[in-house]
């Protein structure tokens, strides 16, 4: 394999090795219920395999089928096609309804992340019960990111990969109505007219965020 890969992965990924890698990728992605990152997949494939390229090719093969290979943040997963939801919809999960407060808090965190509890409360105009954040942490959809470098060092919250997976978003930039909100300046925490409209950001810690304290870690793991 190392010999053939020396001839260039471009050729390989479309040749016999590529076909074998696609089969392996298909098997691995099918076997997992959770989205997988290229780094998690790489060990299964031949050395030097171009995992992102293989994922794109596999996704293209499944486009239009009953099952699609979709991107969720940095990860990928097979999911049933959106348009078949009318057939497959399982109503009993509808009873697992988030409260209005929790839903609103989730949306504010998603669109304003990284956001502190005080910032969420400012948008809602009401003090959140601690329970709301706990509930959202339990869903595994939000996580503690770090601590804002301001007095009191408040914890900053952001969304998780499970959030993207649950709501079928390729990334945080896929949030519905994001462009419109950005255009209207409503994602700003300042008074209009704000010149710089921040965008939600779920990447690594920002300049004004510190890592969580070691003590925070116990609480920070979202319940899977």
């Amino acid at each position, binding site marked *: 394999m190392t010999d053939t890969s020396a001839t260039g992965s471009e050729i390989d990924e479309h040749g016999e090795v590529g076909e074998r890698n696609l089969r392996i990728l298909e098997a691995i992605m*099918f*076997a*997992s*219920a*959770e989205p997988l990152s290229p780094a998690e997949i790489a060990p299964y494939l031949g050395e030097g395999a171009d995992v992102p390229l293989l994922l794109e090719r596999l996704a293209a093969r499944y486009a239009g089928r009953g099952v699609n290979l979709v991107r969720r943040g940095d990860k990928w*997963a*097979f*999911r*049933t*096609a*959106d348009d078949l*939801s009318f057939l*497959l*919809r*399982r109503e009993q*999960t*509808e*009873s*697992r*309804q*988030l*409260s*209005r*407060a*929790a*839903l*609103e808090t*989730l*949306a*504010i965190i*998603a*669109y304003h992340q990284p956001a502190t509890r005080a910032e969420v409360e400012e*948008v*809602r*105009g*009401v*003090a959140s019960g601690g*329970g709301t954040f*706990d*509930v959202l942490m*339990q*869903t595994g959809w939000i996580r503690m990111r770090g601590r804002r470098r301001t007095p009191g060092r408040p914890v900053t919250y952001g969304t998780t990969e499970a959030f993207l*997976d*649950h*709501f*079928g*978003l390729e990334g945080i930039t896929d*949030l*519905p*109505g994001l462009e419109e*909100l950005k255009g*209207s300046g*409503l994602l700003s925490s300042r*008074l*209009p007219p704000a010149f710089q409209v921040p965008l939600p950001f779920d990447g690594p810690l920002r300049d004004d965020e510190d890592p969580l304290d070691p003590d925070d870690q116990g609480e920070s793991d979202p319940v899977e």
Partner: protein
Amino acid sequence: MSDTPADWFATPDAPREDEVLYVDVAGYEGPLDLLLDLARRQKVDLGKISVLALAEQYLGFIQTIRDRRIEVAADYLVMAAWLAYLKSRLMVPQAPSDDEPSGEMMAALLQFRLKRLEAMRKAAMQLVNRPRLARDVFARGQPEPVMIERRNLWEASLYDLLKAYANGRERGVPQDYHLFERTVWSLQEAREILTRLIGENMDWVPLDAYLDQFLSDPAQRKTATASSFASSLELARQGQIELRQTLTFGPLFMRRRQQDGKKPS
């Protein structure tokens, strides 16, 4: 924090006891929510609402509640105070020397906050109506998890094994000879035996005579002599017995010490 799903995906809760007092605003999630609801009743775009009219409606609403002597949460009163101030700023033209934010700025801020809250509500609705996992879209129903066969590779050499055996057995050896160990008289034992033998005897009697029955056993001879001797010194020190030895290596005599008011016989 509660673990029960019933709690976190709640159907509307029964009002908590401390909320019952605020019954008239209980339907609202805070003053901003109330304001948003009032603003919507103006049936115009939030950008075109009359902030002055809105402030008056809010103040009127709160006043009605207070007239009925129902306690209102502090949040609502803070907002009422701010709106009263906003109203006064809007109605009185701003003096050039005034550093305070103008009524127009305050009104714009309020409009912005209302628009932002409404936008977030809309976003939340759009979010929950997306095709959701496990409701509209599904993962593999029978995932085939990677089975990690965890094998412990126990490390132990034959030498470790034999060493452990030898150590274990050797540790057990003294227990096989416990009879030998028993022949050691502790000082406590010797003291008890000696006290019993001397009893109330006021006559001088050599130690060897007292220990005669024990000294015949060679296994006990040394320990009985040594422990009894040491105990006799302790008993003498406590004034319970008296000791006498007339010559070096001569027999050691002992008797009970006479108590006060008692004559030696």
